[in-house]
């Protein structure tokens, strides 16, 4: 197998000079790429490098402006996703394209061309899920499932179409280390069966571990074709960014750890809806100068904790949340902001920012209470000049790349919008900062910048709480790590005593995949 791959084998896909233009931006500029049979090919690049645009053209979701695609040696025109599937190209999307109101089996059935009764679909899905070790309950509603489980549905759905080429768009950005390991095993099995995989990622370690060849994109152009196993993570990063990625520095706090700025005392909350987790007696303390990390498998109450701390949901007991020594449990978001707290929610678009509003307007929405003096004029009119100046300051501080002077939030790439949203809060010099998933789906360069900014904030005397599913990130940033499981928060583990194993055990407090594995046993 190995030898055949290295010898080049049969060519499955050949792309020549693929180009896509959006307005003034060349999202893809003459991209060449070839994939052999039974090869895992990595497509590397920072956010906005053109990876997603490129694969959307391969999958027929976007029309290329120029360039040719050869499939098994024949020139093809992929007019729509249906045509791509027909050729044997399957795709697992980064932002899942599942129907939440439908069951797993119904979701799968929709993508099959043949007409098969639903029971048969469920049976075949079960078989595949066993073969590839992807536990799945065909009759669960997608809306009830965790991100990892949803991804399995996507993969099984893709496999049922018996594709020759499987495109995976940042598949591990939502998975725990254990889930990611299981995914890699599945992908290796698939490769050994002779299927080809186009693997899009900016996580260099996993690309080195998994992929046979890599194509690196930067600003819409191919900068290198290489063998990732011959490269170091640093050399790959240099190709992606075009520069060295600064390692995050974590200095000791100059004044040492100070007084408690953020506290939660027996913070409880019933489950808000059937898909939610209750909070059970959460206790935490974050002191001045300290970064506390909160780890956990997605959907164990982290989102609920964030809402309770930020004031999106208020508590009956005012003393259950204390900010700078004041009881804040019954305060709204603005009240807590006025005490010096700042919040960055998990979802950038729609929660952290209004997609159709300009950056300066989004800035105004989160700061008009705390910065009323500088942003509001007489009779509560908006001082546009002060606003654009502040937006500009943030853009410069965080190196936000955008097109146009003051674009709409939705026009920015994910990483750049995240930099803006974090910068919007940092710009206030908050004494308490609470961030949920600071670098979700953000490229290496931007992520390093965000992490450094948060650490620097803590070292300047603020309390920083970071909720994240990315363990590497937490180990890089935190002074202590606490783990959320089933609505409970563990005692914090000081970073000097924390190991992946220790934290992983706490994360798995029980079986995180209980739901699906039970279903598999039943099957």
């Amino acid at each position: 197998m190995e030898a055949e791959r290295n010898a080049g084998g049969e060519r499955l896909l050949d792309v020549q000079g693929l180009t896509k233009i959006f307005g003034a931006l060349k999202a893809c500029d003459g991209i060449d790429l070839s994939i052999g049979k039974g090869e895992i090919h990595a497509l590397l690049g920072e956010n906005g490098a053109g990876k997603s645009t490129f694969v959307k053209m391969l999958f027929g979701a976007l029309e290329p402006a120029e360039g040719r695609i050869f499939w098994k040696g024949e020139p093809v025109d992929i007019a729509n996703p249906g045509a791509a599937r027909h050729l044997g190209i399957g795709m697992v999307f980064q932002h899942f394209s599942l129907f939440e109101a439908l069951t797993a089996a119904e979701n799968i059935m929709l993508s099959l061309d043949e007409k098969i009764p639903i029971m048969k679909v469920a049976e075949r899905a079960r078989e595949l899920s066993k073969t590839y070790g992807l536990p799945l309950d065909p009759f669960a509603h997608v809306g009830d499932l965790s991100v990892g489980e949803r991804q399995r549905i996507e993969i099984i759905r893709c496999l049922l179409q018996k594709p020759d080429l499987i495109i995976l768009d940042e598949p591990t950005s939502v998975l725990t280390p254990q889930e990611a390991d299981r995914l890699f095993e599945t992908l290796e099995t698939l490769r050994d069966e002779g299927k080809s995989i186009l693997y899009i990622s900016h996580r260099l370690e996993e690309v080195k571990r998994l992929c046979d060849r890599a194509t690196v994109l930067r600003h819409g152009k191919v900068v290198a074709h290489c063998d990732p196993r011959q490269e170091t993570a640093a050399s790959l990063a240099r190709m992606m960014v075009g520069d060295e990625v600064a390692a995050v520095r974590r200095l000791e706090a100059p004044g040492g750890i100070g007084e408690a700025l953020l506290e939660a005392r027996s913070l409880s909350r019933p489950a808000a809806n059937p898909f939610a987790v209750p909070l059970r007696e959460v206790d935490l303390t974050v002191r001045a100068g300290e970064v506390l990390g909160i780890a956990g498998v997605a959907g164990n109450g982290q989102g609920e904790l964030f809402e309770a701390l930020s004031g999106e949901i208020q508590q009956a007991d005012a003393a259950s949340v204390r900010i700078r020594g004041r009881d804040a449990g019954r305060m709204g978001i603005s009240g807590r902001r006025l005490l010096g707290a700042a919040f960055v929610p998990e979802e950038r678009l729609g929660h952290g920012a209004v997609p159709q509003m300009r950056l300066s307007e989004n800035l105004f929405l989160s700061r008009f209470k705390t910065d009323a003096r500088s942003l509001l004029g007489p009779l509560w009119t908006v001082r546009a000049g002060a606003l654009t100046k502040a937006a500009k300051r943030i853009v410069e501080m965080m190196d936000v790349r955008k097109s146009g002077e003051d674009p709409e939030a939705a026009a920015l790439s994910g990483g750049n919008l995240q930099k803006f949203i974090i910068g919007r809060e940092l710009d206030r010099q908050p004494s308490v900062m609470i961030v949920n998933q600071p670098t979700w789906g953000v490229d290496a360069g931007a992520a390093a910048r965000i992490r450094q900014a948060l650490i620097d904030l803590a070292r300047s005397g603020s309390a920083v709480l970071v909720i994240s599913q990315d363990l590497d990130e937490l180990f890089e940033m935190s002074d202590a790590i606490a783990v959320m499981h089933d609505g409970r928060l563990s005692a914090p583990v000081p970073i000097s005593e924390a190991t992946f194993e220790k934290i992983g055990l706490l994360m798995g407090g029980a079986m995180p995949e209980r739901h699906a594995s039970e279903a598999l046993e039943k099957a």
Partner: protein
Amino acid sequence: MLESVLITIATAATPLLIAAIGELVVERSGVLNLGVEGMMVMGAVTGFGVAVTTGSPWLGVLAAILVGAAFSLLFGFLTLSLVTNQVATGLALTLLGLGVSGMIGEAFIGMPGVKLGTISIPVLSEIPYVGRFLFAQDPLFYISIVLVAGVSYFLFFTRAGLTLRSVGDNHDSAHALGIRVIAIRYAAVAFGGACAGLAGAYLSLVYTPQWIENMTAGRGWIALALVVFASWRPWRVLAGAYLFGAVSIGQLHAQVIGVSIPSQFLTALPYLATVVVLVLISRNRRLTMVNTPACLGRPFVPAR
């Protein structure tokens, strides 16, 4: 006495049910057509006119269905192909329907109508108390029940129904799967229009066989509300329509007997009762979340 009350309830409920079940399919595909009232009144005037002119009520029914569908396709063209705002376009459709029907119907005012006869099923219709209610009704009553059963089966047990629901849940994902979102929505809108037209024909050919301007009297709006309160589920629409019919007939009887409750309150009672009951049965939030079309009213423009 009970039997005749039951029959009047069915007469009050059937037009609501037919219009609502059509709108349910439209909304399940993710389109909000607020023009039900307009399509209904167009069906009523066309049905009456054709029936009177040709002497055949069945031709009237057919014409009403076709005109309802054609009228809804105008809505479909505007909202689906030209991507106009669905709410505004639906409201415009209602106003247009009321106006055009008034103009066409001017010639028919005061004319004696043609009534669609009842169909009695032998033996079964002799069952005491409910026999005539269930088995000696006008044909559109039977059709309304068949429609509910058919729509329920279609939505939840056929692949085409699954496809339609998927389009209403997430049109971007559906498009990515190669499902023809716009074509499916056109079909759903046309079906909704046909049903609204049929419901209109029921009013002018069964309920009161004559033409009166604005004879739908807000029934299109009630049908729309029923769909939402029934959380987009066919059999609940049936329950809601009959509950509404029952309370409206009941309050009429109460007014006749002279119950000492202000008549305005009694007139409002059917609306109140329907809302309260349907809200109570939609308490299960999980089921409601699963049944609500997430893309309702959102325009679909594929990226190219």
